[in-house]
């Protein structure tokens, strides 16, 4: 039975802060996420090398080197709680036995450090959503889905604490929409296709988690909103579109929680801020300390309400001080240490607001993540239960909020960006309020070779 959210999880904006949430998650080793302190979540990947059967031995050596380095650094810096994310390479999901083997190396080392040194760490296991490798994607059956199930199940049995994914239902339509800043198609991709896929997917992931003693964590619209963010950062598409995309991914993301996910949400899911406001579940976010993986205009504000603080991903390459994942670990630990000290000294709210104010006036993508704006958008989302209506209304409200901020001269926006507020509004005006009518229109408009409507049950 799906959960329903009709109001926010918070009464006061002052309670909406990093490190704590109304519904913390307790892991198998007793580590509590969202229980009062923000912890680091470290992610890493291989250096430039192919991921094949021939390189598996070397890959296992590199992963072992990484996890030893990361946990040793955590121990040295007295960081007794952290999350490790193993986000597999596509080849390691496609050949689940490879991913399972590497996970076991990582998890066993984590157990060892906990037993020997008291470094409590929790494993987030994130296989790839291989389903998009079929074009058009086959979502609910087939070899790719079977491989994903296999790696989820076995790694959970082997000790993975949290199951997560960056799912891609609807992305096959959205990729081209991003290039065209086509909000109409993005709303179809997220509010109609993506939301339907999320319901099916998260019911399945939750069943796997429940059966194998793991936590049904969360998703990320990385392929949607973060792609938009990166392209906006490169000056390819309007920042306004990227900002609206950030907010409109929230209703799709909410479907995961409605269908069993309990958090912590995935690091690159900036839509997590709206999820936390609505559901009270803990979230991971990434910002300035993820610059090793991608640039962003939200380096500080992303930390304002995070419960775990991530580096997104970093290659095992040698820097002057040491290997990059160890460098990342140190940076995250110091970030968290400062924020937790602020909380202990009674300055948590001040710290949150400093993180917010240092970014929010400089870019619409940051402004849309202000805690007060998050509450305003989240209240709009819970007014209805339809993912499509939520998505459409979120888009409309986001544009109103950004226009209001520009009018009040509290948000910096280039002239060429400002003109896109009206362009996007015009696109929204042509979307019917009735979902069935909209789906019928989009079935006519969207290239039928790119997606399979029946995979979404439409």
């Amino acid at each position, binding site marked *: 039975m799906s959960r329903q959210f009709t109001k926010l999880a918070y009464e006061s904006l002052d309670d909406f802060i990093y490190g704590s949430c109304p519904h913390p998650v307790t892991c198998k080793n007793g580590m509590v996420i969202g229980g009062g302190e923000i912890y680091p979540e470290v992610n890493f990947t291989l250096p430039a090398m*192919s*991921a094949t059967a021939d390189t598996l031995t070397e890959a296992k050596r590199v992963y072992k080197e990484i996890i030893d380095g990361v946990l040793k650094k955590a121990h040295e810096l007295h960081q007794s709680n952290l999350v490790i994310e193993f986000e597999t390479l596509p*080849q390691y999901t496609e050949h689940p036995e490879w991913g399972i083997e590497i996970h076991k190396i990582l998890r066993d080392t984590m157990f060892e450090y906990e037993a020997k040194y008291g470094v409590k760490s929790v494993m987030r296991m994130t296989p790839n959503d291989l389903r998009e490798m079929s074009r058009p994607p086959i979502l609910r059956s087939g070899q790719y889905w079977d491989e994903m199930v296999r790696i989820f199940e076995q790694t959970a049995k082997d000790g993975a604490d949290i199951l997560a994914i960056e799912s891609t239902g609807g992305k096959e339509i959205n990729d081209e929409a*991003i290039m065209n*800043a086509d909000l109409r198609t993005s709303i179809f991709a997220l509010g109609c296709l993506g939301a339907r896929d999320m319901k099916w997917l998260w019911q399945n992931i939750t069943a796997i988690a429940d059966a194998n003693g793991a936590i049904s964590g969360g998703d990320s619209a990385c392929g949607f909103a973060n792609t938009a963010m990166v392209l906006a950062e490169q000056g390819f598409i309007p920042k306004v579109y990227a900002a609206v995309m950030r907010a409109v991914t929230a209703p799709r993301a909410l479907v995961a929680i409605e269908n069993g996910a309990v958090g912590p949400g995935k690091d690159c899911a900036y839509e997590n801020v709206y999820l936390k406001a609505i559901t009270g579940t803990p979230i991971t976010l990434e910002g300035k300390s993820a610059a090793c993986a991608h640039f962003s205009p939200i380096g500080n504000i992303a930390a304002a309400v995070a419960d775990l603080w991530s580096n997104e991903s970093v290659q095992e390459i040698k820097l002057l001080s040491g290997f990059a994942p160890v460098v990342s670990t140190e940076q995250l630990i110091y970030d968290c240490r400062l924020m937790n000290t602020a909380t202990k000294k009674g300055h948590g709210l001040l710290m949150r607001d400093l993180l917010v104010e240092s970014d929010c006036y400089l870019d619409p993508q940051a402004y849309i993540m202000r805690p007060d704006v998050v509450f305003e958008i989240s209240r709009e989302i819970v007014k209805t239960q339809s993912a499509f209506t939520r998505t459409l209304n979120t888009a409309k409200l986001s544009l109103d909020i950004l226009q209001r901020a520009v009018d009040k001269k509290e948000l910096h926006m*280039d002239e*060429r960006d400002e003109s896109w507020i009206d362009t996007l509004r015009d696109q929204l005006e042509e979307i019917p309020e009735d979902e069935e009518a909209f789906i019928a229109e989009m079935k006519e408009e969207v290239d039928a070779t790119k997606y399979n409507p029946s995979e979404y049950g439409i």
Partner: protein
Amino acid sequence: MDLQELSLAVEKGKTKQVKELVSQAIADGMNVKTILDDGLISAMGVVGENFRQNKIYVPEMLIAARAMAAGLSILEPLLTSTGVKPLGKVVIGTVKGDLHDIGKNLVAMMIKGVGATVYDIGIDVPDKNFVEKAEEVGADIVCLSALLTTTMPAIGDVIREFEKAGVRDKYHIMIGGAPVSESFARQVKADKYTSNASDAADAAKEYLLSLAQ
């Protein structure tokens, strides 16, 4: 008729007007190569420059590119019958194991804008498919894209596939993607690395023009 009007219509992305003006220019007996160069390609040059100067975004460029393509579709039969050739032929794709296509699509779109014919062979492309397509269409340039550190080595594999087939010297191989660098290009013996789509289009144009001289 004044080709300036056609050029402006392309810049503004007015597809219907572009079609009408191209038809009118043909009816007026204007040289088809002149219509192509001074009415369509020059307009895309202006659009590209506006993009480089941060005056417009890619969506505006795409609208202009679609308008240009509409005009070109009317011109193409005449260009062929009068022996006018495109600037050159480019095969583009994302290498094996890599599903990323947005950057590759951007490069394809911008290279089309400089007047080349682009054959986009998609994502997750096996090494030999690049060779086969390049040979099939008689390409001048092959563009390879990778977005992951673990798929980047496949760029080298594709280049070796060209070597194995004994056709490496026939093609100018350009590479790009987030983890790719100048030094990597040297390492895998690619001919050109560019860090963004605009530079890729400029580099392709420069190379194709050098062939024509």
